[in-house]
């Protein structure tokens, strides 16, 4: 039988993959996708604990995480578009200065 621990280990593995990807990759779009992976891992943890403790609050937290993730992606991709207009094919290493 699958217990809560299996879900939590899966979430930890997913979070690890996302974190390593965020550190290793240099393409801003891929880095955003890795952030999404980490957010999803946290969502899985929330829902697992919510079920284990028989509390609906875990699912409500996931709802808010989803909203924040959507807002984060919209703003982040707008920044990527704005940067690419001035400096095409820029990677994260090229963006060490904040000026356009």
């Amino acid at each position, binding site marked *: *039988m*699958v*217990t*809560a*621990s*299996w*879900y*939590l*280990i*899966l979430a*930890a*593995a*997913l*979070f*690890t*993959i*996302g*974190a*390593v*990807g965020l*550190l*290793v990759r240099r*393409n801003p*779009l*891929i880095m955003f*996708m*890795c952030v*999404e*992976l980490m957010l*999803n891992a946290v*969502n*899985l943890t929330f*829902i*697992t604990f*919510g*079920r*284990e403790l*028989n509390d*609906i609050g875990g*699912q*409500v937290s*996931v*709802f*808010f995480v*989803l*909203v924040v*993730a*959507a*807002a*984060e*992606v*919209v*703003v982040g*991709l*707008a920044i*990527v*578009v*704005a940067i*690419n207009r001035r400096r095409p094919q820029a990677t994260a*290493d090229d963006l060490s200065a904040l000026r356009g």
Partner: protein
Amino acid sequence: METAVFIVCAAIVLAGALGVVLARNPVHAALSLVGTLFGMAVLFLNLEAHFLAAVQIIVYAGAIVVLFLFVIMLLGVDRLEDLSVEPITGQRTLAILAGLGTFGLAVAFLATSDIGLVGHTKVLTLDITDQYSNLHQIADVLFTDYVYAFEATAALLTISVVGAVVMSRRMARSDEAQESAGDD
């Protein structure tokens, strides 16, 4: 049955996650992300979070990944990336070590806590004979205890949409003329 669904979905989720990190082409990474999010939605169903499984498909796989693909196509960055070059020496080794450390700490915490791996026999069951559905329970809490947070998310979404429009629109004509003069 729950075990079989978990094993299949865990494999899909991890394979998709590795695909995101290892894909050389950003389009392939985005499609791998869809796989991960879909597997995650089925896991949510397994955990009896029905509303969130639907939201996961609609918002993540439907909206966010499409937004990613749209930006990839718009910018024309769907070219292969050379992953063999390591910009900072030793960075990958350190990143993988840090990742393994994170994973190890999480598993060690699980093994030593109340909900640990060893001797944990409690079978996960939520009282779904409850008269309220999952959606009804979420709505009950969301519109009473968390109603101010819910209103704040409305403001957050509005601000982010306005911010995205402001940042990604083209410059006004006078600015543009000035800018091109500056570039010359």
